[in-house]
């Protein structure tokens, strides 16, 4: 933590219910009361939202010290009054503390107890007695506080206000208006925290309600948080509606498997079925929030197509087999292969990645292992080895807290809202509270960038390296100069995984950090990537960031693993492994949760058809058709392990469900055993202990890569350069089985600059046809005022726009765009 210890002079001392408390200046009375252990009932108050004083449930009696007498000491405290002689209750959630203040809550003031009961009675006048059919029943602040701060019986005899049953705020969030207590938590969250003010309180008086804007749907990646913080059951999630009661649920602390933000979550299950996930409070990481993907995308494990048993291929068909048989076939196949590689994918836990890393070196005798199942480069490998691996909050690496207090943040090839939502929330908070300046080197100014108050440094895909070099030189457009000047005063550079696709860009980023003194952090997209890097599931690195080429590091690991030696040549990366499989140099491969399309393999037949494929998978994927042996493995809810978030912070999680599924490390251990090796990866504890005792390498860090920028290819007439990233909610297979969530995914649109649209004779809203090397896609056109020219942006893997294979194909990044219907 970088906050300085609170000075005694910053403290204000007051008395609450006769208890003296000292709290930081500017604190709210309600927070001070919490310090003193006194609970004041509340609805609208939320520590992470600006105070609003909407519900009036938190009334207290306040006495202020009188003016100082002749000797300078304040006179007797005086009660704050409305009409003279009558106490005026104050809302404790909006009033800040003052020295010498005396506060009486419902505990010591009878009048306040009565006032709170009055407020509660008014709130309940229009509240339906809906508890039996309300999802909040059993965990409802209104239920609880009606018991603690309300009267036993109601005096209201008229008919209550009713509304037709629920309104769909989005396909996932439902609003029962009559339950709403108008606390404005949801609207304040959307407006302040998420920056998506698509809901607001409309109408007045008894008819006041939460409303949506008709033209603009409530499209937000963070809408689930409104369901969680609504103090009544007015907002509910469609997926959990009427499913369960809190006392049915068993809760397990868990960590989200969907991105490298590393959100702390809670997984609630009932008799072996996961029913919901909630954000868990972790101030250092996700605060109290998570994103809708983390909250709702968990049904993929129960859509009914899980591999329950091992399978082996016989006469061209996969059939169910016993574990011993499958292991025997897999061991024989890999044993007969001349050379095998390992594709890990970025979704496994650090323990799993470690087992893959060890399996490759010890059993297969190769360094051909890589977790980067996405576009990557050798430059990236050098960059990761030089600047990323082995860093972490303990070692002074960039943390969420640092983002919150940074004066300037430069985003390179990184779209936080889509690629790491909690980083986005942190940057938005930094912008709101700390006036952090955000600059983004990107082809297009996204809505997310606007919400962070960010400025675009427009760069067409492929030109990022030059733009970064220009920032380093401090010469270029006005904005580049501003950014350069701001960075020079210290700041943070966040590098996304997409920068790996631009030759020289990562070298330039490292050089920029070096030159300006700004701190550098790498933010991958998938949850397992950082852990896999640390665990050595990488062609040039052994566990702990040890270089494969460093003899003493190799010896250290070999000693720990009880081996005579380790393979000493750096291995092939993902692309290299795929190429070697295609050419037949490799004829065996172990695949852990990698979809060939993620690797941009369009011709899976040519790549995997000839090789012996052992696939460790949860559900069928495009690799299944080529697998010779399938070993079923556990999903994140069924195993314990650790993810490492982008900061380098380990995020351990427990198994929520007890099943017979094994985690990847256990399957690999059994396979190694069958092949005559002892891997020592039988339990999570065993793996984790070994990783800890091995620790980080102490060898010298390699220097950052210095790859010169490549000359971008000439754009042929009428062609546009393709820019892309994935939407947070898209067609990813881990979002399967949740139609309500899918309904909130952004629609695929093509974005071009206004100038480009004009040159092409296209207008906003036109349906355009984009000719990709893999076929065409037809999407609606959106013109963006701030965007690089001659560039078209499409989502990587949304419905109607799957670019994964096209992008990996030579020349696939230049596309031809016409109006749909024109020849």
């Amino acid at each position, binding site marked *: 933590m970088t906050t300085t210890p609170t000075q005694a002079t910053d403290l204000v001392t007051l008395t609450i219910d006769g208890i003296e408390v000292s709290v930081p200046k500017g604190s709210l009375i309600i927070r001070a009361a919490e310090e003193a252990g006194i609970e004041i009932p509340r609805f609208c108050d939320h520590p992470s939202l600006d105070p609003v004083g909407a519900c009036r449930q938190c009334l207290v009696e306040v006495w202020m010290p009188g003016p100082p007498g002749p000797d300078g000491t304040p006179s007797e405290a005086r009660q704050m009054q409305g009409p003279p002689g009558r106490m005026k209750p104050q809302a404790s959630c909006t009033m800040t503390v003052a020295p010498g203040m005396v506060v009486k809550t419902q505990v010591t003031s009878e009048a306040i107890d009565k006032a709170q009961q009055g407020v509660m009675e008014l709130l309940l006048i229009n509240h339906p007695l809906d*508890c*039996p*059919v309300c999802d909040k029943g*059993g965990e409802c602040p209104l239920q609880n506080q009606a018991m603690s701060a309300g009267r036993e019986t109601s005096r209201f005899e008229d008919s209550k206000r009713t509304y037709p*049953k629920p309104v769909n705020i989005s396909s996932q969030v439902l609003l029962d208006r009559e339950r709403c207590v108008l606390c404005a938590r949801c609207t304040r969250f959307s407006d302040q925290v998420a920056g998506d003010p698509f809901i607001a309180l409309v109408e007045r008086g008894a008819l006041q309600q939460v409303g949506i804007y008709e033209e603009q749907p409530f499209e937000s990646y963070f809408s689930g948080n409104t369901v969680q913080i609504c103090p009544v059951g007015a907002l509910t999630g469609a997926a959990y509606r*009427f*499913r369960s*009661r809190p*006392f*049915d649920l068993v809760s397990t602390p868990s960590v989200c498997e969907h991105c490298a933000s590393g959100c702390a979550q809670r997984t609630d299950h009932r008799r072996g079925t996961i029913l919901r996930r909630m954000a868990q409070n972790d101030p250092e990481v996700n605060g109290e929030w998570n994103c809708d993907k983390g909250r709702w995308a968990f049904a993929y494990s129960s859509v009914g197509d899980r591999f329950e048993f091992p399978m082996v291929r016989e006469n061209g068909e996969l059939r169910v087999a016993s574990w011993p048989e499958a292991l025997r076939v897999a061991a024989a196949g890999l044993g007969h292969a001349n050379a095998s590689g390992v594709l890990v994918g970025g979704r496994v836990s650090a323990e799993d990645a470690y087992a893959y890393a060890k399996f490759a070196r010890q059993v297969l005798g190769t360094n051909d292992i890589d977790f980067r199942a996405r576009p990557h480069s050798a430059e990236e490998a050098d960059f990761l080895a030089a600047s990323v691996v082995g860093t972490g909050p303990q070692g002074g690496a960039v943390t969420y807290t640092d983002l919150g207090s940074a004066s300037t943040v430069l985003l390179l090839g990184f779209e936080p809202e889509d690629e790491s939502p909690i980083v986005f929330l942190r940057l938005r908070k930094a912008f709101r509270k700390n006036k952090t300046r955000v600059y983004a080197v990107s082809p297009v100014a996204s809505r997310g960038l606007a919400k962070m108050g960010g400025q675009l440094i427009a760069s067409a895909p492929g030109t990022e390296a030059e733009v970064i070099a220009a920032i380093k030189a401090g010469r270029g457009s006005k904005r580049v100069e501003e950014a350069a000047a701001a960075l020079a005063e210290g700041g943070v550079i966040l590098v996304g995984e997409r920068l790996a696709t631009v030759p020289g860009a990562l070298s330039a980023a490292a050089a920029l950090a070096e030159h300006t003194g700004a701190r550098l952090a790498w933010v991958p997209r998938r949850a397992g990537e950082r852990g896999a890097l640390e665990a050595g599931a990488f062609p040039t690195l052994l566990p702990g960031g040890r270089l494969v080429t460093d003899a003493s590091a190799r010896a250290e690991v070999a000693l720990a693993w009880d081996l005579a030696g380790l393979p000493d040549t750096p291995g092939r990366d993902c692309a290299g492994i795929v190429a070697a499989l295609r050419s037949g140099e490799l004829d065996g491969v172990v695949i852990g949760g990698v979809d060939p399309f993620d690797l941009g393999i369009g011709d899976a037949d040519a790549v995997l058809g000839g090789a012996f494929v052992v696939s460790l998978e949860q559900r069928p994927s495009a690799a299944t058709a080529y697998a010779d042996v399938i070993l079923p493995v556990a999903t994140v809810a069924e195993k314990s392990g650790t993810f490492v978030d982008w900061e380098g912070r380990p995020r351990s999680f427990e198994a929520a469900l007890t099943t017979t599924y094994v985690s990847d490390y256990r399957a690999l251990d059994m396979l190694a055993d069958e092949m005559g090796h002892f891997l020592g990866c039988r339990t999570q504890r065993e793996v984790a202990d070994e990783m800890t005792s091995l620790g980080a390498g102490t060898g010298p860090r390699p220097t950052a890569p210095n790859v010169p920028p490549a000359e971008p290819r000439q754009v042929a007439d009428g062609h546009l350069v393709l820019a892309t990233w994935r939407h947070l909610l898209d067609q990813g297979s881990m979002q399967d089985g949740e139609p309500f969530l899918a309904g909130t995914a952004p629609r695929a649109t093509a974005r071009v600059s206004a100038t480009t649209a004009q040159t092409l004779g296209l207008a906003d809203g036109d349906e355009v046809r984009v000719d990709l090397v893999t076929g065409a896609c037809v999407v609606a056109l959106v013109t963006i005022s701030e965007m690089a020219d001659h560039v078209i942006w499409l989502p990587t893997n949304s419905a109607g726009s799957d670019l994964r294979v096209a992008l990996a194909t030579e020349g696939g990044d230049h596309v031809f765009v016409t109006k749909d219907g024109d020849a």
Partner: protein
Amino acid sequence: MADEQKSPGFFAELFAPIAGFGVTFSTMFRKVVTEEYPEEKRPTARRFHGRHQLNRHPDGLEKCVGCELCAWACPADAILVEGATNDDTPIEDGGAGRFSPGERYGRVYQINYLRCIFCGLCIEACPTRALTMTNFYELADNNRADLIFTKEQLLAPLQSGMVQPPHPMVEGLEERDYYLGAVTAATDAQRAHVEEQSMRHTQEPTEEVH
């Protein structure tokens, strides 16, 4: 040391051989209290706590809303409920059907009579009067599984005027009207719906959904 035995007297000595039958003889002339169960069954007290029943609205829709309050109240943890959403999408279009008025119904409902202590707290907890107790007490069996009663067993039989759900609510009425006594029997439209569904079912038997 033993006391000298006193003579019991003339009559006592006379009847001594049959004195042991005294109770027998005197009982022979009293009213018989034996119940000839199971040949003859006698009614219980009117408020006897017997087996539960899940009641229906007069048109046949279920009263249970799946709120689980009964399960919550149960001190013996004998009740298991899972709620679900009523679905007015036509069944032929993949709808799951409507079983109760309003939005929510009890999809799964089980009472475990191996656990139930017949305290009746569940009845008190039920907000809709869906759950009541009957006087039925013959709850013995030779295996455990059969003593977990499912929703089908617990649901009250259809009475005259009722039709078997799933079917829509009475046209033009809201959920609350059901509690205000506005519904007295299934309407023609509801009957027609159920008949149509059962015709469809007999014509093209679809997969069982349980």
